[in-house]
């Protein structure tokens, strides 16, 4: 098994900030610290070993990065100061770019969220939760009704989304950024 030896370079390039991924000593502090480790099919440590072994496909198909909650416990505890959450974002973005969806629920939640931003410039909580639950947890909706009603009656759920004035400008910024990212997909983003 030789694997894709350029893969960890790709991850490093896609990581914003310095990844330090090559410094991993496989101690497992990340996997031990992770609050969502039990949902992951590989611990972060194992994922990094796989990445270094060039198991590109298995890494991109792993749900590990999608289960990351960005709590940064791993980042502050890592004895090698690896920027683990940023590496997770990088792996997710490579998977997204290549159309690999290991974790539909998480991916869809992100998408719905991002979609709202494109529509309004801000997050629209009611729309977000409603769309997400209808799609993934329709059976949870009845159980959640009391909470929903409570939030609504207490004025915590607005039904009219706020649209920012500079939405058109924001969209051009995001479009330009996406362009830069695509053109730069394999170039070093960090220094």
């Amino acid at each position: 098994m030789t694997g894709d030896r350029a893969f960890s370079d790709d991850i490093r390039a896609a990581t914003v900030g310095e990844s330090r991924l090559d410094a991993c000593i496989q101690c497992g502090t990340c996997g031990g610290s992770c609050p969502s480790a039990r949902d992951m099919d590989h611990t972060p440590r194992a994922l990094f070993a796989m990445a270094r072994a060039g198991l590109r496909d298995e890494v991109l198909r792993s749900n590990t990065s999608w289960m990351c909650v960005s709590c940064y416990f791993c980042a502050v505890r890592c004895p090698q100061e690896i920027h683990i959450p940023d590496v997770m974002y990088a792996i997710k973005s490579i998977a997204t770019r290549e159309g690999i969806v290991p974790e539909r629920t998480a991916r869809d939640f992100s998408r719905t969220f991002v979609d709202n931003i494109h529509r309004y410039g801000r997050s629209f909580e009611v729309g977000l939760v409603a769309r997400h639950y209808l799609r993934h947890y329709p059976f949870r909706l009845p159980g959640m009704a009391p909470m929903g009603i409570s939030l609504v009656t207490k004025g915590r759920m607005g039904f009219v989304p706020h649209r920012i004035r500079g939405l058109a400008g924001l969209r051009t910024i995001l479009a330009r950024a996406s362009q830069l990212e695509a053109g730069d997909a394999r170039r070093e983003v960090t220094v």
Partner: protein
Amino acid sequence: MSGYLYYPGCSLAGSARAYAESLTAVLDTLGVRLREIDDWNCCGATEYLTLSPLAGYALIGRNLALAESQRNGSDTLVAPCSACYVNLAKTDRYMRESPVMREQLNGALAADGMHYTPGAVAVRHLLEVLVEDIGLEELERHVTRPLTGLRVAPYLGCLVSRPDYDRRWARREQPLELDRLVAALGAEVVDFPLRTACCGGHMTQISPDTGFELIRRLVEAADRGGADLLVTVCPMCQMNLDAYQGEMNHHFGTDYRLPILFFTQLIGLAFNLDASTLGIGSEVVSARDALARIGVEVPTVEGEPAPPRRAKRSQELPMPAPLAEGDR
């Protein structure tokens, strides 16, 4: 000390309106002026970076660019939401660190004629501003209704003291700033070792079993510590612990009723501000019973069990002293 730039974030304009109302009321009392950034946009939480990092950072960068152009003398940008705070702070930090990042983000911002100079604004969380800039003594000076007898679990969640790449917090796992603030209000701080544990973030949306377990742990630990209520500094934490507490109870067959308030609501109460101006009442798990204790003289009533205290045995070995500021 007047004049902070203010980035409320989407939740404060929506589900966490109580946070927005209470922080406004409290800062008004303290005479601190906030200037909301005009036409800010969503920071993308953790979701945008997932799909497209550069666009995610550009999204955040637009807010920083707006802040810079609207500075007008104030160069501290306050974010009350922990996720917004960390996003803004990280973007600024990475732009400072990496010339490539600086060039690319400003390239994207230029599409709408915008620009951000890294370091132009100092991004800080509301908690830090209250503790560091305004100071506990100043807060204490405004306390007219000490929260005597109220037992509070201080909960920071992630993202305030972590990742903290600029190392502004002495402790990143057990910071005591919120504890000190709660104590300054006259309330009793319960031992709450999970003060920076994860609330589950979006796990309630993508992996409910894990999300509920993370919520349970926090609620259980606060309950074990004897807390009347838990205070938080982040709308996401508040939402998870408050709104999903019922579903969590249902999932585990438990019956916790732990009110979750924003720390600014608690400050407001200690300042003797009207509960309605602080958004109290909008919490899903009602804080009525817990708050009934405030303002009432609560001496050590007979019959009420004294706080548990382990009998000191002669053979007990001494404990190390807590880490002091001067220790290296």
